[in-house]
């Protein structure tokens, strides 16, 4: 389990925002990213602790899965 904000950042990091470039003669840019994922979560003093489900390692005594939907948009610029 990790703090929910770290999971959000890790998910945003997991997808490349662009591909290609001058060497490929073409480049593509992701403008928005929508994720719809199952989630294992529990409450903590700091808010929500969360992790993605453990899949094949599940024991059968796990918490019921929650769900999270995230929409990221490309934005910001170098300061």
């Amino acid at each position, binding site marked *: *389990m990790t703090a929910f*904000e770290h999971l959000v*950042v890790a998910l945003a990091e997991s997808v490349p925002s662009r591909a290609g470039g001058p060497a490929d003669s073409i480049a593509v840019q992701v403008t928005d990213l929508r994720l719809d994922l199952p989630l294992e979560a529990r*409450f903590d003093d700091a808010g*929500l602790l969360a992790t993605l489900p453990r899949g094949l390692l599940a024991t059968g005594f*796990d918490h*019921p899965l929650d769900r999270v939907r*995230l929409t990221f948009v*490309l*934005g910001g610029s170098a300061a």
Partner: protein
Amino acid sequence: MTQGRAMPVEEFVQAFTAQLDRAQDLLALKARTGRPLTFALRDLAVELHVFWEPDQGGRMLMRHAGPNEAGASTLHFTFTTITKSMVEENTLSLTADEDPRQLDEIGASQALDPHARKRLEWAGVRTVGQLRKLSQNADPKSVQAFTGIPMMQLESLLLQAAEPQVTSQEVVAGGLGVPFLRIRGANLAHGIAPPEVLFSGEPVEVLESSPRELLVRPMSHHHEGKFEVLVGQKRATGFYRLPGEPAPRPGAAPEPSPRGEALKRPDGAQWNDGPRNGHGGAP
């Protein structure tokens, strides 16, 4: 794996919002490390499986469902990005509240039973100003029906809220080396006539007055003691302490010199001559 703690929804939303702020900060940090563009979180929806349980105070707490626990509620939270101006637009301004004292700060609120206090809170009444507004815009019977607080109790609460009260004071720089005292509180003035303020029993000049704040000019011999604010027939008191050594009171006999000689007044008379013209002597 432990089940985690149970928490009230409002506490969860506060904590979760803080987590989302941190997530935005972390994502924005990447833009500052040389990446021209980065993802920003725009919308988020989360569905959580929870069970509801009341605590001893009657608050509903949510507890995340544990392993093999069937029948959990599904709680959907949807968050979206809002701008600073939207937050400001939709936030109750504390400075706009005519009386921002918490209900706990007036003694009569202690007499309210906890359920009545809770109902007021649910109705969004947390300050004395909000209670007054609620009572101004509706007849007492409707307020009683709405809040469940008996009319008499509500009236007593409002009466107590109308009493002048001193909550804090601050010494501010004044003219001619005499500090002014800013007195803060509630109901410190009523109408256009300024209240009477006494420092150690002596009236002092009131330079500015409003229900929440007074600015007064103590006399040079006022150093510390009790002050009173008289608003009509009502009274609030506090204690003041001004910086610096106390100046001798006018007409008060000074300490004798080490040689035991009485000091002379500028007019040549001795300090212990007694009052002239029937007044102005030492008390």
